[in-house]
């Protein structure tokens, strides 16, 4: 009965009553909406203030990230803010000092890559070096939790055989159209990704590693509805993970199967996380975004070889500046037999396969 004794609760008193029934009678629709709007605004702002000031770095960053622009439209200050936000969040999340680099393309550099297809022994060391460097998800329990950017394709070698000298073509159908002593390369047309012999290289196999070709005319960039993937001035095609909506248009457009979607929440153990990251490169991704090879931007922007080049035990992988005539990639283009995968699609990859 304390309420009834309160003078402000008196219906004959002030128009703003604590009693909802009485209050509604005395307010107009406009006032009500105004009050409601103010209430929701203040509660939103309160939440924002609470979240940004809370010790939970993750929540604070998520909130700020909602109002973040596309990376290409950010000013230098906004980039610095985003960098600081992410460094705070990742450092809290992974329990070590994480740096998020925002170094831009260096002038006079156009990155190029070459791979000696005859030297590759199919050991998959590049695949796992890439995972160690680039903070991919590496879970084992559920399908889609383990993401690898490089695929090594095992292809069989074709051969001519004496015992097939007189085989007709097509076999057994009557019309002899010539010999068919050749057993085609690739008993399996699509190649094998899951080969696992005791030792490589196998006698009758060739290996072909495939990753993002960093095309000069990338089909994935053409189809991206939110323009979050684009070609950087020094060559690599990158993704602003924050703007990716996970629509997978780029995955469908890419003729080289280079892109991967984080179907699950990425599994990245703290001790295995690489703390040196780049905003457009290997910073930890979230669920529902697409990722792919970016030629280790966090390394190459500072002059270092990509991780896969450094671990290749046979030295089949070569990386350099296409604008420098003395670089190893330029020398390969001058001197060796070079081809580009699916050149007929006019994607103009900067990834070249060569052989001695």
């Amino acid at each position, binding site marked *: 009965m304390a309420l009834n004794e309160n003078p402000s609760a008196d219906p004959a008193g002030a128009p703003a009553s604590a009693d909802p029934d009485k209050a509604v009678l005395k307010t107009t629709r406009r006032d009500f909406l105004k009050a409601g709007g103010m209430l929701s605004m203040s509660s939103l702002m309160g939440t924002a203030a609470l979240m940004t000031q809370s010790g939970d770095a993750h929540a604070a960053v998520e909130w700020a990230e909602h109002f973040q622009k596309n990376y290409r439209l950010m000013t230098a200050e906004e980039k610095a803010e985003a960098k600081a936000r992410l460094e705070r969040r990742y450092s809290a999340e992974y329990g*070590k*000092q994480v740096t998020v680099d925002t170094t831009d393309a260096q002038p006079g550099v156009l990155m190029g890559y070459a791979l000696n297809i*005859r*030297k590759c*022994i*199919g*050991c*998959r*060391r590049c*695949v*796992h*070096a890439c995972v*160690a*460097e680039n903070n991919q998800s590496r879970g*084992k329990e559920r*399908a*889609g*939790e*383990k993401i690898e950017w490089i*695929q090594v394709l095992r292809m069989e070698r074709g051969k001519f055989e004496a015992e097939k000298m007189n085989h007709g073509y097509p076999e057994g159908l009557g019309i002899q159209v010539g010999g068919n002593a050749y057993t*085609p390369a690739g008993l*399996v*047309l*699509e*190649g*094998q*990704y*899951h080969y*696992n*012999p*005791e*030792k*490589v*290289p196998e*006698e009758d196999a060739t290996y072909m590693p495939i990753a993002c070709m960093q095309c000069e005319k990338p089909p994935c960039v053409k189809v991206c509805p939110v323009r979050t993937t684009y070609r950087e001035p020094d060559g690599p095609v990158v993704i602003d993970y924050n703007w990716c909506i996970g629509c997978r248009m780029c995955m469908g457009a890419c003729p080289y199967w280079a892109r991967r979607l984080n179907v699950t929440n990425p599994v990245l153990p703290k*001790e295995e996380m690489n*703390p040196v990251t780049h905003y457009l490169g290997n910073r930890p991704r979230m669920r529902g975004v697409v990722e792919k090879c970016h030629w280790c931007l966090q390394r190459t922007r500072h*002059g*270092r*070889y990509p*991780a896969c*080049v*450094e*671990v290749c*035990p*046979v*030295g089949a992988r*070569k*990386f*350099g*500046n296409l604008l*420098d005539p*003395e*670089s*190893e990639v330029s*020398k*390969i283009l001058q*001197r*060796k037999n070079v081809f580009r995968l699916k050149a007929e699609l006019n994607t103009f990859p900067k990834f070249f396969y060569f052989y*001695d």
Partner: protein
Amino acid sequence: MKKIAIYATILAICGGGLYSVVAAEKTAEPAAAAEAPKEPLVCFESRKGASEITQREIKPGWPNVKCSPTTGAALWYGDPFEGTVPMGKMPGLENLPEGHALVKPRSEKLNILPMCGTACHNGVGPQFNPPTLPKDKKPIPIPTMEGLVPDVKDLQHGRGRIWCLDCHHTTKRNMLVDHFGDPISFDQPQLLCGKCHGDKLRDWRDGIHGKRIGEFASNGKKRWFTCTECHNPHNVQDGVRNRGFIQLQPEPSPQLPKGMANADHEKVHPIPH
């Protein structure tokens, strides 16, 4: 008295020994607890049996190398220049800035190398004066030599057209030899191999053949892998391998897609032929 003294000394020794053991255990325990999960992890770099690298932390959370748990191969370099020394004079690389061409010394890995120059093969000794040099180029099997270097039993290099002293120096056996008979260090095998494999030497010098790690700019600081870090010169053409590189165990295969029990479909052609 004498007996007592003896007993006393025995007791004292035992007691002292026991105490020292206990003390040692006490000090050892925390050290063991700290070290037990981190045994020195050594991984091989290019081929097994050649250069290796021991894992350690450069700074917190930043190892010098990450090794593959499956194969023991080096998978990731935190510091590409660890354990390297300047390459030395190399024709064709004079334009590189000083200290930008580095190699890992091979001689550290070759255990019997210090012996080679002194014990048997220096060509001087009481009964070898003047030095008794080989009379012809047909090596006589020496059991000690074959025990130390098993590769010499079946030399798989040159298809029978070369022998030991085409590459090794006659009187300085801890050195290699060039065309003029001058010694070459084991750390610079490219000067020797280039005698015959000139095309490969040229490609290696330009960065096309072989492996380099570090900075990718053409005049950048790099560690160059020398010939013998990837190729075993005594059996480069051994039977089961191909492409001049010894066979090794591959890293694990990728995860299977959802709903796929095995990858047998990859081994069958969809259209029989």
